[in-house]
């Protein structure tokens, strides 16, 4: 996998170098890590975990053996988020962290990967997607192409993918479980219009607590 690494932070944008520089709002990049870290800890408890420096990839190779895919839509960006993992280490992690009763199979893996993706997407949506009513409903769509044999996915564009790699340490066998998180803003990328939801900047959302009306 051909990766590029962060060069420097200019004002509020993080510039990730590739053959062409790509600017991502620094608040967005930090927020993605913060959100995902929080989701992992909510699901797996006080697990040892690390995240590599964010990078940009241009290849279309799918890491691992299972991945989730969910659309991201807002007035300033449209694309997809992918979470990619290898089956066996992830299933063992589910067993060893008490996330499933008995032996974990591919259904438990699918369920947990789906829920993990849903939780990250939800928090991302609440913090960065803004008012859904301003999203143009007459949207362009482009076919995604997936080649299972070649472990290849194309979003119909040469746009780069913003990549985060998380490494969780299995508390029982010490195995490193690697999850790749990719963001590809294939349909719209307008970082000059990026802003965090006002609610997110003023009051943190308390998870798990019941708010009675």
């Amino acid at each position, binding site marked *: 996998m051909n990766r590029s690494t962060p060069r420097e932070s200019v004002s509020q944008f993080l510039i990730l170098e590739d053959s062409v520089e790509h600017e991502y709002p620094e608040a967005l990049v930090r927020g993605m890590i913060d959100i995902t870290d929080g989701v992992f800890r909510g*699901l797996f408890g006080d697990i040892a975990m690390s995240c590599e420096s964010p990078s940009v990839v241009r290849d279309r190779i799918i890491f691992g053996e299972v991945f989730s895919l969910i659309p991201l839509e807002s007035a300033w960006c449209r694309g997809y988020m992918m979470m990619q993992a290898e089956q066996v280490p992830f299933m063992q992690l589910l067993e060893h962290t008490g996330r499933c009763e008995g032996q974990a199979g591919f259904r438990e893996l699918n369920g947990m990967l*789906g829920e993990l993706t*849903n939780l990250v997407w*939800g928090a991302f949506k609440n913090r960065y997607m803004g*008012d859904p009513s301003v999203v143009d409903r007459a949207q362009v769509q482009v076919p995604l192409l997936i080649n299972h044999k070649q472990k290849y996915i194309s979003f119909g564009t040469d746009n780069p993918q913003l990549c985060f790699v998380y490494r969780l340490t299995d508390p029982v066998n010490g195995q490193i479980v690697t999850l790749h998180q990719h963001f590809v803003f294939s349909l719209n990328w307008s970082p000059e219009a990026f802003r965090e939801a006002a*609610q997110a900047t003023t009051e943190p*959302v308390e998870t*798990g*607590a019941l708010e009675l*009306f």
Partner: protein
Amino acid sequence: MSKILVVDDSSTVRDEVAGFLRKNGLDVDTAVDGKDGLAKMKASPSVKLVISDVNMPNMDGLTMVEKIRSELANKTVNVVMLTTESSPAMKERGKAAGVKGWIVKPFKGDAVLETFRKLAS
């Protein structure tokens, strides 16, 4: 007859929430989306508490609640949303549909068990 209905397209969440409530002595049934939830409510009018996700295929959770109130004319069942959504607009829609409470995922059973017991009694 079940007293609590858990509605979520995620089997992980259904298993976690329903499993926790059953372990604590509560009667629980589950549904996989809003359409399934509505059908189960129609078949089981004795359900006292619905715990539902918002974002689900076939029918979302808030539409399901609106239809429970209108099509099934059930104004009494307590509904708590368990969802990743936290926007004020979404909560307002929930309130207008008669949603009683809102929990932003992840589920923390110990924090809500006694309230759920009261709402289901």
